[in-house]
């Protein structure tokens, strides 16, 4: 067993870390969130230049032959820097679906996504939480050679800006499947908004919208979501690590009663609990990544990672705010923004409560 990043992965982390430190500091990020722009085109271009958009795909597919552990390696940094670009949505969810489809239009879109020329959003969520493909209720009706979709998708990251959408709906056979919809298609009504963690998202009404089936093989959708969940968890773990460091630093410098607040045992023990929580979450992240890399991660393994990251992330966020006191409750400090990112990571694809219960079903 070996859970260390390889030298190459470490180098990738170093380069991306340096870039983000320099060009994606918190103030810059906040200006971006408050701007009209959905995200930073420049950052997206940089990600493309770093090869991140093509990384998770095989060389035959035109990708760089990277692995899930490569993605985890830099996704931790995305979490650390509260990156709002739709990487998971476009590159971990839509692109693999497009790549796995024999449909020529899908292949075209795939090439554009990994080339940085287009963003394809992943329209999955339907209500207050759609934890897995098995919960999809939107149905696709056959319409000539294609399909039409009706209903609503919610929380579609980059849904209003994307050039196309990959939409989860039930196929004629009743099984969950994926469909391709071009942006601007008739009957598509997105309402855009920012999420609490600063990302651009949309709720989208579908009114008899023409769509093409991607016709993925059986287990492909679950596998795609499993990998995307790992990357989403890596972002969360990155955010947790940042919060632990920021909070420990604050507690050791902020003085009350004439001494650093870290010298109060209640604060010290909270810092310890944060460290313990982070240790668990990061261990589960690295272990599950290694399992997935070996093709051995089960649904239960993914559920464990997702549940633990969700619960521990929330706990770390709340502890960080409490330790910071008043300033922790403001929009001005990064602490509350980390917490909101962690809440979002918990909520999407089934929150900790959902996954704990699935695990408990045995």
């Amino acid at each position, binding site marked *: 067993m070996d859970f260390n990043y390889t030298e190459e992965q470490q180098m990738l982390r170093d380069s991306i870390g340096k870039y983000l430190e320099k060009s994606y500091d918190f103030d810059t990020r906040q200006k971006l969130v408050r701007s009209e722009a959905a995200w930073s085109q420049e950052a997206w271009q940089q990600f493309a230049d770093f090869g991140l958009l093509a990384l998770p795909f095989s060389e035959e597919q035109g990708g760089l032959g990277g692995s899930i552990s490569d993605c985890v390696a830099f996704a931790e940094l995305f979490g650390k820097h509260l990156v709002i670009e739709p990487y998971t949505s476009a590159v971990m969810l839509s692109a693999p679906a497009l790549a796995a489809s024999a449909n020529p239009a899908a292949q075209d879109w795939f090439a554009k996504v990994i080339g940085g020329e287009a963003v394809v959003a992943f329209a999955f969520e339907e209500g207050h939480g759609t934890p897995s493909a098995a919960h999809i209720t939107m149905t696709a009706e056959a319409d000539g050679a294609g399909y039409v979709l009706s209903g609503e998708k919610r929380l579609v990251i980059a849904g209003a800006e994307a050039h196309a959408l990959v939409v989860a709906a039930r196929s004629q056979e009743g099984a969950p499947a994926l469909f391709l919809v071009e942006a601007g298609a008739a009957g598509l009504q997105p309402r855009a908004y920012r999420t609490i963690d600063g990302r651009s998202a949309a709720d989208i009404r579908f009114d008899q919208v023409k769509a093409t089936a991607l016709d993925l093989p059986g287990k492909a959708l679950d596998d795609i979501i499993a990998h995307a969940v790992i990357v989403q968890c890596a972002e969360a773990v990155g955010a947790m690590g940042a919060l632990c460091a920021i909070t420990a630093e604050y507690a050791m410098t902020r003085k009350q009663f*004439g001494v650093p607040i870290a010298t109060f045992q209640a604060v010290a023990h909270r810092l310890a609990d944060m460290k313990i929580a982070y240790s668990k979450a990061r261990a589960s992240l690295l272990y599950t990544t290694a399992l997935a890399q070996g093709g051995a991660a089960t649904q239960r393994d993914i559920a464990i990672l997702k549940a633990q990251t969700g619960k521990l992330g929330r706990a770390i966020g709340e502890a960080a705010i409490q330790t910071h006191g008043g300033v922790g409750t403001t*929009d001005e400090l990064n602490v509350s923004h980390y917490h909101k990112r962690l809440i979002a990571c918990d909520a999407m694809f089934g929150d900790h409560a959902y996954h704990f219960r699935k695990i408990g079903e045995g």
Partner: protein
Amino acid sequence: MNIDFAPELEAFRAEVAQFFATAPTPAIREAGRKTTSVFAPFKECMEWQRILFEKGWVAPHWPKESGGTGWSVEQRFIFAEEYRKADLPPLLPQSLGMVGPLLIDLGTEEQKARYLPGILSGDDFWAQGYSEPNSGSDLASLSCRAAADGDDYIINGSKIWTTYAHHANRMFMLVRTSNEGKKQQGITFLLLDRTDYPGMTIRPIIGLDGFPEQCEVFFEDVRVPQSGRVGAENEGWAVAKHLLTHERGGGNAASPTLMRYCERAREAAAATPSPFGGMLATDPVFQRELGELEADIASLGHFEKLAISGHAIARDPAFPSINKTINSELIQRASTIMAQVSGVGGLVRQLEALRVGSNVEPLGSEFDLISMPLYLNSRATTIYAGSNEVQRDLIARSLAGA
């Protein structure tokens, strides 16, 4: 032991419910439903205060002779329960819950005559100037300085976490008038007639929920009359401690509000599918968790009733700290369950739809609109009014004398 179950109380309940069904304006009702904090939307809240004042019901926890209602404990709880059932905005605590009771207890006759009417009617709204950037939990280390000059003080320094200071026309505050002796000495309690004195600047701070609720207040050679002092110079710490028992102990019960949050969560859950089938409201896990919360809120309600009825439990020196700790942590738990019901619906940031009178259509339900801001806002409840760490210190310290 005795609880009054007299039938007249049901008549009283009907009277209260009837008033709440008719008196508030639509905007006041909307403000009540859209309250995502201990602090309701200012404008509608003050309109509602005016209406309650005119009815004579604005301060049930005040002594009757000072403007209270003279109700029994049973009546006060009936009033609070109906208030929450109608989702009306809670009145702001700084004036009616804090400086008002303080002045009744410790103010001069002149101060009472001058200030109590405006506090009751809502013509005045008071901000509380306690914390400073470097004096949070360690409040006694405050350094905002008031130097005596003739009949005035000249104030220099700043205050922070001054809730709704940008709405306030008056302010009570702690200032340092001496650096001699222990830090608790040399603090003076001042009432400020205005918040627009020359040299006084108010900067709202955007909270993590996106709303400006707290403020920073800067003082640069601000001249205020010494007649606004409560208690003696340099003895403001005792005044502040006295006020804290009102702030933390609360004449107003919190449990009806918390129970109402549970009801709203239950209502929303009845309209939300569970991923395990059926609706969330009938999901056993949801019921288990909501039931635990409701039971804990019920215990707080019992505790409040004991306290308000004069049981020895409220004479325990640790009472205000126990009450504040329970209450603040229950707000967090209630809003956590509410946000859980909303699930990903709570990830939508749509502040403009939350404004009273907004014509922006909410993307989700009204419940989804409020649950996440409420959860986020409630992070502050265990920090303000003396962090819960400080409260637990005080509770533990009280055991030494027990």
